[in-house]
């Protein structure tokens, strides 16, 4: 079940928002010990894909995302973003790439506490060459898009967790990047709010943006088109969501549970509803 870069070869087309990873290693040096967080990850993500990255805690998901987001560099291996090798780019060029091509969403939101929602969303525009006077208008549009048109002048402390993450999503969207990277965007949110955030990503995905989401939750991953699973720094499985064995197991378990709950409610030991009808990405409740 080792995921190979050729698992989705037909989709790979060079251009904006495409990712090509080859033999990516990441070594952390902590004192005399070295931690091998990634041990040779190869992965292709095409423009317009919606990918979920899953794996146990410590499997290297965040490390991978940081490399994808050009926030961090691999110790070894090749990363090609939108057809360009990132190891040849300097700090300023990488900043430019993060500004124009990537929208990053963090688990901990990372909003500026002293700035309003609008100012937070405007931040990437401050570092882009786009016209200054249009900035606040674009930021307003982005906030309206995530449903926060009425919270523009609120500070993060005056917003709920879900609203904060929406602000962060608006910030990721404001520069219209080809790719949105989200590292456990719903990790700090309840299931209902998580659902709202993930629906936001689905909306964005419909516009043709590439989306990569790290998550621990199968039901969140269920919204993606493809699930990549990591273990100890290597890709152990890479399948379309509908045919991912672990995800199918999960759906079956859920369906069984739901059926048991339903029958227990009407009449103990009643009929069991089959789970096969459940579609991947469908609204699976917890």
């Amino acid at each position: 079940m080792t995921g190979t870069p050729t698992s989705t070869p037909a989709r790979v087309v060079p251009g904006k928002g495409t990712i090509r990873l080859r033999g990516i290693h990441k070594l952390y040096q902590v004192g005399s010990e070295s931690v091998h967080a990634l041990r040779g990850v190869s992965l292709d993500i095409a423009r317009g894909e919606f990918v979920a990255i899953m794996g146990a805690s410590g499997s290297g998901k965040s490390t991978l995302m940081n490399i994808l987001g050009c926030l961090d560099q691999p110790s070894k291996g090749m990363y090609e973003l939108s057809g360009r090798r990132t190891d040849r780019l300097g700090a300023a060029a990488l900043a430019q790439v993060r500004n124009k091509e990537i929208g990053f969403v963090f688990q901990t939101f990372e909003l500026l506490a002293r700035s309003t929602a609008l100012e937070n969303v405007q931040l990437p525009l401050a570092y882009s060459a786009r016209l200054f006077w249009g900035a606040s208008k674009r930021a307003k549009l982005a906030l309206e898009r995530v449903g926060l048109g009425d919270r523009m002048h609120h500070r993060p402390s005056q917003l709920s967790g879900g609203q904060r993450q929406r602000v962060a999503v608006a910030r990721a969207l404001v520069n219209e990047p080809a790719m949105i990277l989200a590292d456990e965007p719903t990790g700090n949110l309840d299931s209902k709010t998580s659902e709202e955030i993930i629906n936001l990503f689905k909306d964005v995905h419909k516009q043709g943006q590439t989306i990569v989401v790290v998550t621990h939750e199968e039901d969140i991953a269920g919204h993606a088109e493809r699930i990549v699973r990591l273990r100890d720094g290597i890709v152990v499985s890479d399948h379309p969501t509908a045919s991912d064995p672990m995800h199918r197991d999960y759906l079956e378990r859920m369906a069984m549970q739901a059926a048991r709950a339903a029958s227990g409610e009407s009449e103990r030991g009643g009929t069991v509803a089959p789970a096969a009808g459940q579609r991947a990405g469908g609204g699976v409740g917890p």
Partner: protein
Amino acid sequence: MILVRLLFQTVALALVQLTGNKFRALLTTLGIIIGVGAVILTGTATQALKGYVLHQLDTFGPRKVFMTGDVPRPMRGRIRWSEVALKLTEIEYLKNNAQTIDAITPMYFVTGQVRAGEVSRDGVTVTGIWSDWHEIEKRVVTIGRPFIKVDVDEMRNVCLINDKAIAELELRADPTGDTLLINNRRFLIVGVVETKEMAAMFPGGGETRTEVYVPVSTAVAMRPRLYVDFALAQLKGTEQADEAKAEITAILRRSRGLSGDDPSTFQIHTVQSAIEQFQAVSGVITGVALGLVAVSLLVGGVGIMNIMLVSVSERTREIGLRKAVGARPGVILLQFLVEATVLCLIGGVVGVVTGGGMVALGKAALPGMSEYLSVPPWTILVSVVFSAAVGIIFGMFPAIKAARLDPIVALRHE
């Protein structure tokens, strides 16, 4: 265009940062405030002193030359001053031969009793002069006429007095035509000269005295001696001070038969060289003051650097986020540099205002000096330039530190 926008944004950001931490900003810039305040105060003080002294020297007459006999050090105690004092013949010789001066007069003091009718005053200094005295001293003759050459040549018993003498001797407001008895000799008052306050910086200055002038020939006749107290001359031009000194020295040395290593038995002082000396001294004073100020600005700069380092480490996560959304290292560098500079400039402005306020207080306290006490524009310019420079220089290290932060390391910072 993009640079202007960036600067505008970073300045706005810096102001927001600083207003969020007003008290800390004030404390941090204390060193700058004090340094700049010191620039303003020392600049104003040295300028005021210079203005005052130069004004005094100027009213004294920048073209004046003093000459007097002097017993050189190795001869002290062996010869008396009267043996080396200037003689009338020497002064006459200088008058006819020195090219660098256009007027000269002996000053021949006779102390005695002056009487006008019933009123008499003892111990009045009567000064014997030539008519050139008017040219050199430029004292206004308010009533009557000045001395003329004939008064001296014919040894006339005429005198000039000042306003103070009119008051002291209880004379009429216009005393010309009246007579005075000086040491029992009868003198006709021909004119009144304005009373002039002696420059405060000279001994016996700052006060007025009773003055009586007579032709030098008449004074010699009253109390005959060969030497005069000193001589007063006027340079043809202020730029000839050194030349005149050399010429007069040469003439006097020749006439006194001094040669080779013999020390001169006279002294020559020009007001112009005093002015030049003072200017040199005040330049040194200003230099020293600026040096001290530079030290205090340096100390202020270290404070700025410290607070900027604190600011960088407090805002590490923020820096990480800014980098994550696309801030280039140069932009982060600029942001912190602008913040340090704005901080210093605010300190500088507060310092200028504080210093200016203290100058205003000084003006109120010293009304006599008020016309010289004004903040020189160059001190404000120096203050602004220096505080900006301190901001840039001492903000550089923290700004580089911020710019070099790795985005992911900064984001993970606690």
